[in-house]
């Protein structure tokens, strides 16, 4: 469970549902509460999926606009956050498909980019570890990358992941296990390469 949601997941969902209902009843300025609550989570999710800092804010904006426009179709069967996560993942998928993965930085560029980011903004404190994880994630099959990010970085439950990915919990279970195996292999290889270089 997402730690920030864990204390009262149900009440969070209920609160979000109340806000959505209010917005649909014309109290539109309340949408800012949802933006405030989920914007950084969506930004991080988009960054982790696309691995491109330059498009994070644009895609985040598109996600919230899309969600706002689609709000009348919101069914109240799932949480608002699982719903908006799904929109975000679809946006990322669209973006990557349209760009034919051109945005995926090769390792050297990523290194350079990250060192630039570090110098300028001190975004990462443990840049090497983050880069290694990013690199390992990038080498994963897209489906595995997606599910691993939702579980390990976003800390969502199987139920939430199944809602976001629109699949059965059993599928989440087996896909996640395979994703972890695959990820572990890649990380081991990366560590091995790193140590060989040293």
């Amino acid at each position: 469970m997402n730690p920030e949601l864990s204390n009262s997941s149900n009440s969070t969902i209920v609160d979000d549902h109340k806000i959505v209902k209010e917005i649909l009843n014309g109290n539109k300025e309340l949408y800012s509460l949802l933006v405030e609550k989920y914007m950084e989570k969506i930004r991080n999710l988009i960054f982790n999926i696309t691995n491109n800092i330059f498009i994070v804010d644009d895609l985040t904006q598109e996600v919230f606009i899309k969600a706002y426009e689609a709000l009348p179709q919101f069914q109240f069967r799932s949480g608002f956050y699982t719903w908006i996560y799904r929109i975000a993942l679809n946006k990322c998928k669209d973006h990557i498909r349209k760009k034919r993965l051109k945005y995926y930085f090769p390792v050297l560029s990523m290194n350079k980019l990250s060192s630039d980011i570090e110098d300028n903004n001190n975004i990462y404190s443990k840049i090497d570890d983050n880069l290694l994880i990013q690199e390992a994630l990038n080498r994963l099959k897209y489906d595995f990358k997606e599910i691993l990010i939702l579980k390990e970085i976003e800390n969502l439950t199987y139920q939430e992941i199944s809602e976001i990915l629109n699949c059965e919990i059993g599928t989440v279970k087996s896909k996640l296990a395979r994703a972890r195996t695959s990820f572990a292999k890649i990380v081991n290889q990366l560590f091995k390469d790193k140590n060989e270089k040293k």
Partner: protein
Amino acid sequence: MRKNKIYKLVSAFIDNELEDKEINFVLDKIQNDLEWKNCYEEILKTKQIFSDFKKIKPNEKLQNKILIEINRIENFENPFIPIPKKYIPFAITLVAAAIVFFVVFLFQKKDTIEYFLQENTKNVRTIYENTIANNDLFPLRSSLSKDDVFRFAVYGVLPADTTNEQLLKISYPNEKKFYVELKKDEKNNNYKKELPLNEFYKQVNITTKQKNTIDSILEKVKINIETSILASQKDYLAINPELWVMRDAIFYEISKNLNSKQKNEFFAISKIPHKKNVLYENFDITRLRNVFEGNKIPKKDYIFFKPDTIFVKKVNIDSLKVVIENNKKNVHIIKSRANRLFSQYKNNNVIKIVFENNEGEKDAHSVATVSFSSDKNMLRIEIPDLSSLIKYDIKLDSFYRVKLKNHYKNENEMKRKLNDFNHNVIEFEFNDKSDNNKYLDTNDVKNIHIEFDTEKIKNLEKFLLQKEKFLKNKDVNIYFKNIDKHLNSLKKIDSMFKIINLDTIFKNIIK
């Protein structure tokens, strides 16, 4: 139990997603079965890796931006005052009549309309984008010499008009900013200070072979530079955002043909701030080469600068080349056009520009922020986000980083590892790979072309030994020099390795 099943159960156990009876079963297995225990430890380790994962820096301004945008959309969607139903047919007739009137007016008074719009609408950018004609664009400077291209690669400067009263300068490769400057350069003084090509050749004691190669590189890339900076009779200045990469590419291609001593001198005169070899680390050789190959793309995004706005539009490169060819003698095309820009830009103005992707899909674009500043002698246009745009904009179909599995991180390293083939030319040809494969291993090498001097026949033996080890079943085309002197040695090698068919060798020689 199958390994997959074990992973699935242990994975769900760690995530606390199992039923009570399953928990006891898995717990028991982990305590008593080594395979289950190993699996448990491996997944825990994976989770541990993610525990230190850092988040990106929050963007405090974004929330406001999103809300403003939503507000804007809301207002735009409901712009009309509700019309009572009985007036709807009348309103439709009125709108239709207005459209017909407007279309007729447009055809009859096209110039007037254009003038009216240009003078009155706030959305000047759209108008410019739609009214620029490809045949109105000319290279700011055509007929560059080899010397000009050399100075561009080394110092990032180009003469921007035919009388050399203006200088165009781009940022250094290692600077974090991307900018282009138009500077006044009276009597060509600043340009003259830079070391010309011939002096450089003398300074580094260039050999005839090196000179010929470098000359041919400079000659070959001239047209790319010429088509990268454009101007029009209507005060547009347009720049191909690949200009910076082109400079890196030429710089790299020149340095590749120098020995290490010459290379050091070359770096020293270039004034490019760099630590040892850092410059090369940031270069992606395949990508740099693709910049020139990229010319096969008929249309490219150019950044257009106009005194009141900046925007991006695709330009037809092929037709530009024709213009250059046709105007080789007429080099006075745009003289002094850029002059006017100096006084017209407002200081420190910032504009966002949008790059469409190559397929022209409207919703797939990148946004760059451009700022510009000027005084009476200099105009600087800064594009801080250009690094991302360049990656995006260049055709990257064959952009593969060469990382040969466990052995080499790039082509050069591969050459070095195979042997110190300093005097042999080795080229690798790779199989086509899908976009998401970023690394190559030896399996991806389709063909290897090698030029051998048979006087260094020992190298061939070494190479073939290495080939057996790392490049099994690969086609190797070997081209020989001075074959007659060493025919016997070759036969000996052939009998040793049975890898290359001597007939093939002879075929290649005959070719």
